[in-house]
């Protein structure tokens, strides 16, 4: 019999407005994932087939800035249901590339992408994809964040050390550079 489920850390990862590079960097911890695996329950993430973010999550790693109405809804729910919220990577920490649109405005970006550069049936989508917020924001400008891990992406070693700290119940204090 395995250890009781309660002993495991309930871990989630969330992908907001980012390129998935931070998730890739997490996967770049390679075989060390096998060390982590028995210690966690991966309860939510881009590869977990679950529509709703679960209750009672111990640690959530957030990649990406808050750019759309869906991001905003999601991050508020994530915060409410997570004990330790980690901003993973420059987009979550500083807005980074997604926030570069802020000086032009969301409309200018939509126009550029869907009208000026479209070759067929040019129109700005109004359904299915979530509406962009006026500004793209770092996570901590929207909800309180407990741990900040800068980097574009944060190196795999750094992510592993942060995760190891969190799994051991320590508060990580990552020394990491932006970019």
């Amino acid at each position, binding site marked *: 019999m395995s250890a009781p489920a309660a002993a495991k850390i309930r871990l989630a990862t969330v992908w907001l407005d980012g390129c998935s590079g931070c998730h890739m960097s997490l996967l770049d911890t390679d075989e060390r994932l096998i060390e982590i695996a028995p210690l966690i329950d991966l309860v939510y993430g881009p590869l977990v087939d679950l529509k709703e973010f679960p209750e009672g999550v111990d640690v959530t790693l957030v990649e990406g800035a808050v750019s759309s109405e869906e991001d905003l809804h999601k991050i508020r729910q994530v915060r409410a249901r997570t004990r330790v919220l980690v*901003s993973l990577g*420059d987009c979550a*920490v*500083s*807005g*980074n*590339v997604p*926030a*570069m649109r*802020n*000086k*032009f405005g969301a409309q200018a970006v939509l126009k550029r992408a869907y009208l000026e550069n479209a070759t067929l049936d040019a129109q700005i989508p109004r359904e299915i994809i979530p509406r962009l917020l006026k*500004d793209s924001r*770092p996570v*901590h*400008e929207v909800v309180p*964040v407990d741990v*900040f*891990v*800068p980097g*574009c992406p944060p190196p795999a070693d750094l992510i592993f050390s942060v995760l190891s700290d969190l799994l051991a119940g320590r508060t990580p204090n*990552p*020394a*990491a*550079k*932006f*970019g």
Partner: protein
Amino acid sequence: MTRPTVRVKTLTIDGREVGAREDQTVLEVARENNIFIPTLCNLPGLSPAGACRLCLVEVKGVNKLLPACVTRVSEGMEVTVNSERLERFRRGILELVFAERNHVCSVCVTNGHCDLQSLALKLGMTHVHFPYQYPRLPVDASHERFVVDHNRCVLCARCVRVCDEIEGAHTWHIMSRGVECRVITDLAQPWGASESCTGCGKCVQVCPTGALSEKGKSVAEMSKRRQFLPYLTLMREDRR
């Protein structure tokens, strides 16, 4: 040859007793004694500017913080360069610099070679507490070989000083105040139209960030070469 007599002053930095020439600044003495004080606008070989405020220190008996780069030593001075309060202020100043313009390290030409980026790491700045301003700032690529990107400028005035003090052209200056503050070439004309610019590129090399760069450099490709500065300064001092 008569040399002017130089008086020696004794002071303490973080409780450590150090000796200094009377014409030295607190920053110079600290550096001689391997005591770290963070700086951004300062660059040995250029006159001190006191522009960035990162080198603020505490001096006993003075109830405001003083920039170490322009504070002369005095006898019996008791200087504190490392304290929890100073760390907090320095990080705050750095965060304000990041929040004021668009410093996007991941897509910057100087990513990995930037003084501002290194300082953030060194001072343990993991995020910015202030709301980012996202100002809409121009990029002037009118010069044949160089680009000025105001999004990355920290207004340290290194370009202004090197152009004036070392090259002798004084092409660069600073215009306006507060958030309107900009580095300008000639009378706020496009750099490419400047008649005073000699095209020497010293400003580009001393610039701490990606604000001034060489054309043709992509992300992380613009490392700065500053070896000329101590060399030129030394040669000129010898000639005096």
